[in-house]
């Protein structure tokens, strides 16, 4: 407990505030799409069949959104790894805010937590099986246009059991973030898992140098409960000024840094 409160907040370090500002802005830009994806998307896997979607009012149907997003995402991984999660994803923002209220931050290293991120891999496998194996079935009565609350009610009322299971599992795991901070983004999100798989290719990253003495000051600061350049690091940069021996850097990692 005492460990968890001893998070250093260096004066004059405004990057986390900038990040919050950008996250809030992205919530305005992409929040509607993300919201529809979870609550009104008729497909079991949201965000991928937008071009043939019967929902008229979801922003995912605007071509510039759909193609813009799916072209940008791989490019962003190439440059800055999983930074989408740390800086742009509206889901990530919501999860991080819920995480602030959570009972256990669980920002520690232990054997269980080491394997827990495999949950993202499992999520990814399920998504791929639904998408490619079952052709991403439409599994609820799409409320093509409608008022906010009315459409939500009707969506749930006329959804198939499959849709209800997928939706409640997602909502349940997000809500579980009240008990273990950011549980969805750390251990369950299929998109996060996909980005995690490829983030090794990134040109730029937050990393620690050989000066690191394993004090875990960064870990206690990190909303993803990790350390720079390890599993789940999103290059958010929050930890950049937390290292007592100044071992955390951002940029291209060279051999000499290891």
């Amino acid at each position, binding site marked *: 407990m005492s460990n968890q409160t001893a998070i250093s907040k260096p004066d004059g370090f405004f990057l986390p505030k900038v990040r919050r500002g950008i996250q809030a802005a992205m919530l305005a830009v992409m929040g509607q799409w993300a919201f529809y994806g979870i609550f009104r998307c008729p497909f079991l896997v949201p965000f991928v069949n937008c071009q043939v979607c019967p929902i008229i009012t979801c922003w995912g149907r605007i071509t510039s959104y759909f193609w813009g997003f799916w072209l940008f995402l791989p490019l962003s991984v190439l440059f800055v790894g999983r930074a989408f999660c740390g800086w742009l994803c509206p889901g990530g923002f919501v999860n991080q805010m819920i995480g602030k209220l959570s009972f256990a931050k669980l920002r520690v290293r232990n054997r269980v937590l080491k394997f827990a991120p495999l949950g993202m891999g499992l999520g990814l496998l399920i998504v791929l099986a639904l998408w490619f194996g079952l052709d991403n079935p439409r599994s609820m009565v799409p409320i093509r*246009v409608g008022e906010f609350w009315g459409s939500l009610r009707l969506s749930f009322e006329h959804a198939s059991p499959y849709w209800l299971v997928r939706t409640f599992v997602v909502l349940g795991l997000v809500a579980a973030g009240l008990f273990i901070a950011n549980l969805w983004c750390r251990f369950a999100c299929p998109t996060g898992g996909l980005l995690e798989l490829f983030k090794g290719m990134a040109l730029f990253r937050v990393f620690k140098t050989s000066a690191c003495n394993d004090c875990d000051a960064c870990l206690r600061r990190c909303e993803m409960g990790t350390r720079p350049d390890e599993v789940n690091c999103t290059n958010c940069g929050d930890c950049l000024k937390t290292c007592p021996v100044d071992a955390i850097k951002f940029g291209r990692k060279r051999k000499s840094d290891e």
Partner: protein
Amino acid sequence: MEPKKDGVKRRAFLKTAVASLAAAALAPGLLSAGRFQSDSLQVWSCGGLSEAFMEANGLYEQRNGVQINYTGAFAAALGKSLLGGAVTEVFAGRVLQLAQNLRTAGKMLYFRPLCFTEYVLITPLGNPAQIQTVQDMARPGVRVILPLGASPPGGDAVMGILKKAGVDQAVLKNTIEKESCVIKMMPQIISGEGAASIVERRLTRMDRFAGKVEVIPIPEALFPPGPLTFTIGVMKYAKDRALADDYVNFICSDEAQAIFDRHGFIPAASAKGRTLIEKLGVKDV
């Protein structure tokens, strides 16, 4: 000379009058503001009509300064909700029986015929498999994609057409894919993956598909009667009956019906629509 001058004056006066009336008609929100007690109306309709309704609603809102709170979704689902505890002021549903059930249940005050749908054959541009009739889909080797898993009446209606044409088994043999959603199926025909399918004409009028497939009519005799009919009715929950009636009148007016026509429906007010009203017995009794 004088009388002529007078004539000119009179014409000028008439012209001005007509012009100002026209101008007033262009700013009709002002004219009709306060005509109704309520400033909003809740309208539910079958999802297939959504595109047309959104356009018509826009016009109505602009004219009357009334907000239309519109929901469009699969009619049978909305109907089920309405027969349960859900509430709306105006409902435009598909399948005559649904409107009649709502009337019998005392939830709907009256209904009127709104429009009819029709089914067409679609093929990729250029019609590579030379499809002209439903029977042609049964020719060996024609790659057919059917929306058989689509929410009712989608799949059933298509099967009904094939059965009436006497080619259901042969076409099923040719079917390379059964789609769960008509909208999801369209790109497969556009791309040529499938050589033929059957959809409602409205699909071929959606912005994203218009002009991207060949459209071949199917004889009306093959249509299953059930899903053809759309009605519009005022529900007992209408807060402002005058507004609800006025809206229904507008949707049934020639101007709004032309919108439904453009979106691929047969307007109830058209000659063909009137024949169908008689043939299918679309009467509120």
